[in-house]
């Protein structure tokens, strides 16, 4: 057992876990943050994507211990109270989800994509960048629309700040 100290969605937490515990297990099983999903458990599907120190990573392919001292943001941490994050709002408005299983990972990856590319996003780039996130419902069409829509909203939101 080890004590892992990290910041999750702005809150400092300290959790005693077995050393083999994955970051996604720490989030879901120890902190009850079940918005982060486990899909394939083999690093392919991206349902488990969270932000670690601002970078979108697959939380099923990290030991909890590797996140010691890190700043983690999960899908539960991106809305401001009742106000959805622009990416969440864009997914809703564009029907970017059906069953919703992949959605938390899609949204966390998509925010990272927008942050990395800023205003340089086009459809081809979004499709290429989403290669590590798998959706079996939507055919990606509305997901891509949502990400492009959100990229515009995030730019406006940033300009307003």
């Amino acid at each position, binding site marked *: 057992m080890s004590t892992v100290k990290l910041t999750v969605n702005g809150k400092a937490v300290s959790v005693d876990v077995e050393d083999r515990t994955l970051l996604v297990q720490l989030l879901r099983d120890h902190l009850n943050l079940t918005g982060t999903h486990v899909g394939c458990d083999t690093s392919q599907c991206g349902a488990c994507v969270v932000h670690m120190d601002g970078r979108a990573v*697959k939380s099923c392919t990290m030991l909890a211990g590797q996140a010691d001292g890190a700043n983690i943001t999960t899908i539960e941490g991106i809305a401001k109270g009742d106000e959805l994050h622009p990416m969440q709002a864009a997914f809703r408005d564009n029907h970017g989800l059906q069953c919703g299983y992949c959605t938390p990972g899609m949204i966390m990856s998509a925010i990272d994509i927008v942050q990395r590319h800023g205003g340089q996003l086009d459809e081809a780039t979004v499709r290429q960048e989403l290669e590590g996130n798998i959706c079996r419902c939507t055919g990606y069409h509305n997901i891509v629309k949502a990400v492009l829509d959100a990229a515009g909203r995030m730019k406006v939101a940033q300009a307003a700040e």
Partner: protein
Amino acid sequence: MYQTTYHRASSVDEAVSLFGKSSEAKFLAGGQTLLPVMKQRLASPSDVIDLGKIKELQGVELSGDTLTIKAATTYYDIMTNADVKKAIPAIAYLTSVLGDPAVRYRGTIGGSIANNDPAADFPAALLALGATVKTNKRSIAAEDFFQGLFSTALEDGEIITAVSFPVPAKAGYEKMRHPASRFALTGVFVAQTKSGEVRVAATGASQSGVMRVPAIEAALKANWSPSAIDSVSISASGLLADIHGTAEYRANLVKVMAQRAVAAAS
């Protein structure tokens, strides 16, 4: 995953000392291969020694005609590094088509070459560019480092600290990506050194891991152009064959990827 004990090393010396105290330890860099393998219970190290936070293993240096990438530098940090893009753009490109964005944030060059997966991208770059692998004990030429499937010259407890690449006159890389895993079904790295030597390495093709391709090297030495490879014949003997492609298919891919790599080389 079986039980294990996790350690975070803050220096190479500490990592070596932790290794010596463990019965069956493994070094962990980005963990993008080791952790999935442990989850499948194909590896069950007693101890996992994390190298990911060791400062001396991070970063890129360009000094004269040598580009040095330290071992725990992530793919993302390599592909976005200004010195890499300037000195050997083919390495930045190779890194940008490796895995997916989340994997690129975690995976490292040292982890990739220590694992020496027969379909990994970086071994081809090291072999084609004539790179040198630096460890905490010695320097090893790429030719001597890669020793077949998942096998390298590394001794127990030896840690890769950096890879040094001589800056080439021209280099290019292209691969046929496996659509699910993003590994190279076959990938070819071509390089023309500043002294005019041509070196070509293929990954994902041979049953014994990354390999040089002398026939293509000779053709390109005579004429550095994609069409120079048209008449080259690659034997399917000794090449990998699986549900994704036959040995003959891979033999043809070696040619086609080499042609594309030459066309893309800069």
